[in-house]
């Protein structure tokens, strides 16, 4: 596939061309919070940080979304009807996050209508990370600062320009249709490659996680969990900031014969999530709830998806008010299982 070069001073023009056929989402800063939002005409994305604080899953899966409307005429679906969506400036971990959520929302049996409508004909242009943060650990979980999973185009930032490398045929087609986009030269490509190699080399060597799943399975009833979850407040900052956490609630609201059905991000960290009519709650303790989060990402998803459900973005590490670090947990789990001689 052809590679392209975008001078940074032409970024506005590039995004305007994209906006002719796409609703263009990119990182913005608003009220001190960084997140993804649809760019206003003329607005430039905020690109002077790596990951946004709010994960970009809300582009395709809004935090709250009215899915049905009820009135005298019956029930109507209120799905997204805007232009196809283009995401510019997502990081490789988050692009992979889209793929992980999608495997849940679009499985062999059922397709999640509201997710699928927003994902239809969408374009993902990611920007690789030249200088990964200390909380980043994408390279532990099968990713990397220039991983292309989930991207249609991967950009490398050389300082003055972006080298655009199409990953999918769709990405290639859209890039080919952008006017005044230069072809990248051999030299440009070499420069990009050097940056990519340097970025990966700057990350500490990851531990081997081959035995993580079997260690966790073996430790399920072990007091180990009480220790590693003892500090947890159950605030759910980790799940709301996670690009691969997808749990939701469905609620109805109505007044005088008119109503709506809304879907809202929810979290396995709250006791009400699983509380039943009889008062019985299968996950009574915060230990059992944080264990669910970790088991889901590092054991269950290995079974259902064939890989970890964590992309190593590090958001939960930096958002946790009591400094629970998923990496420490991982290392601890493997060591505990080995010390106790229980891992399979």
């Amino acid at each position, binding site marked *: 596939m052809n590679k392209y070069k975008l001078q940074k001073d032409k970024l506005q023009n590039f995004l305007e061309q994209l906006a002719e056929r796409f609703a263009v989402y990119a990182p913005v800063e608003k009220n001190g919070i960084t997140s993804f939002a649809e760019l206003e005409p003329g607005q430039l994305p905020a690109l002077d940080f790596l990951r946004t604080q709010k994960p970009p899953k809300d582009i395709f899966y809004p935090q709250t979304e009215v899915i049905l409307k*009820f009135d005298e005429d019956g029930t109507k679906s209120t799905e997204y009807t805007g232009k196809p969506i283009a995401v510019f400036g997502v990081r490789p971990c988050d692009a992979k996050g889209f793929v992980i959520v999608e495997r849940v*929302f679009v499985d062999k049996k059922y*397709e*999640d209508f509201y997710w699928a409508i927003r994902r239809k004909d969408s374009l993902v242009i990611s920007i690789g990370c030249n200088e990964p943060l200390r909380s980043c650990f994408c390279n532990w979980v099968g990713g990397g600062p220039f991983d292309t999973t989930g991207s249609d185009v991967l950009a490398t930032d050389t300082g003055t320009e972006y080298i655009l490398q199409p990953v999918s045929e769709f990405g290639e087609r859209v890039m080919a249709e952008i006017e005044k986009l230069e072809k990248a030269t051999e030299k440009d490509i070499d420069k990009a490659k050097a940056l990519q190699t340097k970025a990966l080399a700057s990350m500490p060597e990851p531990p081997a996680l081959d035995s993580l799943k079997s260690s966790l399975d073996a430790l399920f009833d072990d007091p180990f969990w009480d220790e590693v979850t003892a500090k947890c407040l159950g605030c759910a900052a980790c799940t709301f900031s996670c690009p691969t956490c997808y749990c*939701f609630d469905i609620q109805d609201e109505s007044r005088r014969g008119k109503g709506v059905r809304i879907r809202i991000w929810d979290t396995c960290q709250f006791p009400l999530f699983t509380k039943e009519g009889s008062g019985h709650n*299968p996950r009574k303790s915060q230990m059992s709830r944080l264990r669910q989060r970790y088991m889901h990402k590092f054991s269950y998803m290995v*079974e259902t998806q064939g890989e970890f459900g964590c992309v190593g973005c590090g958001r939960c590490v930096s958002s946790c008010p009591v400094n629970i670090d998923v990496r420490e947990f991982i290392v601890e789990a493997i060591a505990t299982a080995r010390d106790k001689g229980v891992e399979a």
Partner: protein
Amino acid sequence: MKNIYMPIPVRVKSIRSESDDRTLRTFDLEFVHEDDAFDYMPGQFCQLSIPGVGEGPFGIASSPTEKGFLRFTVNRVGVLTTALHYLREGDEIGIRGPLGNYYPVDEFRGKNVVIVSGGFALTTLRSLTVYLRDPANRGDFGDITLIYGARRPGLMIYRDELEVWEKEDDIAVYLTIDQAVEGWDKMVGFVPTVTKEISPSSKDAWVMLCGPPIMIKYTLPTLAELGFPPERIYTSLERRMKCGIGKCGRCNIGSKYICLDGPVFSFAEIEKIPEEI
């Protein structure tokens, strides 16, 4: 693209009170548009939806061999179930389904079936019983034994029908209540005890066991003693659910979603799941 969250309109065809304490009501529903009608199997469930109130999962109590209606028995516990109890004949509500898997009828074709149930968990097992006894299917299965218990006679659901079945010779029906009361001439005692008394043979037999957790807990050892291996004992699990289709992340035990991989599981499968049921 199909919208799996869009409820299909159904009309309340008839309503019956199912218990003397007015907590249980049985609804027969019919499709507003006939071509919306779907096929289903015993053990599957649906999401019943009242616009503006909410939706929730309910096991299908009718059998696919009974045409023209879908039956549900609803226990009043909260917002949605109370609104369902206020429905009148002719009212329209929404339905999504059929959802989940079903009792493994293909696995026990040609074999004997023991159905053990308590309280209002009989719903989908009524569906199964009617299905097995349908003239088109009856020859495909061996002996059918039904053991059913309720706290007292007034809480025994589908009682008229059960008393008809008691007289049929293609099914052995054992009805029990927790404590003796005047006018009750059938069995007395908890389901686990009664199951032991009856001691159904485990030879070529499968068990479908649904009821309150405590009943299940104490019946399992009896079944083991009778020689039923966990691979041949099935139950239907419940968890809080929202989507019913494996998306909302709410109903998992271990790596399984009860709404998608279940609700029907064998105890051999359940034993492999780390979390408690």
